[in-house]
């Protein structure tokens, strides 16, 4: 369900984009990084931040609705992923991962955001 939500939100954002004149047809597959995509949405009791990497990895952060723009933090987390997961020789890309180093650094980082 979450994947569906993001997929549709991406389609929606690309179609809604008020600046790009040359939009592909509604519902046509979008290439990553090519069109306008969504960064976050906020509801009355949570805020969801979203980052999609060039390879299609999606990083999602659920926070308190009052949190500000967390894009830099998301890219930092993406950096952690690259460092500790992708560079781990024992990891097969595409599989769920359980890397202790990644987890430890992630927790540490989340604490420093201080929400």
């Amino acid at each position, binding site marked *: 369900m979450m994947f569906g939500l993001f997929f549709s939100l991406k389609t929606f954002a690309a*179609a809604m984009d008020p600046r790009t004149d040359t939009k592909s047809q509604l519902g046509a597959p979008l290439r990553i990084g090519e069109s306008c995509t969504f960064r976050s949405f906020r509801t009355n009791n949570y805020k969801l931040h979203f980052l999609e990497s060039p390879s299609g990895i999606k990083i999602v952060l659920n926070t308190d609705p009052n949190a500000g723009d967390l894009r830099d933090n998301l890219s930092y987390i993406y950096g952690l992923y690259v460092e500790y997961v992708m560079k781990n020789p024992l990891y097969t890309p595409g599989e769920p991962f359980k890397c202790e180093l990644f987890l430890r650094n992630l927790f540490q980082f989340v604490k420093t955001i201080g929400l």
Partner: protein
Amino acid sequence: MPAIYALYVINKSGGLIYNKEFVVMASNNLNDTLRLASIWHSLHAIAAQLSPAPGCTGIELLQADTFDLHCFQTLTGTKMLMVVEPNTPDVDILLRDTIYDLYCDYVLKNPFYEVEMPIRCELFDSNLFQTINNVHRRWGLLH
């Protein structure tokens, strides 16, 4: 620079009943706009379901690379969407207080308007334009 691109009103079953663009923008054709409205309607509901905490009423603000979308849902389930330039301030207040007021006055009090049907009210159009123009003027977009 802050700017308001467009206003959409979606009825409680997900149908688009009003759309108006206020500046020149890359717009969709009517069919796509109708589809986007119903997509938004379901996204709104799904986001409420996915909430980690109970009592979520749906998306209020969607931020994308080139626009912010504010969504205000009335108690009866009508949604008002406003597409604005990223980081435009006070749009939620504008929607909740001013635009909703105009909707109540010039649409709901008009005997020739049928509830849930597309909005075709001259007075609503003219007053809406005036309001948006005033806001734009305050931001220094118009002189």
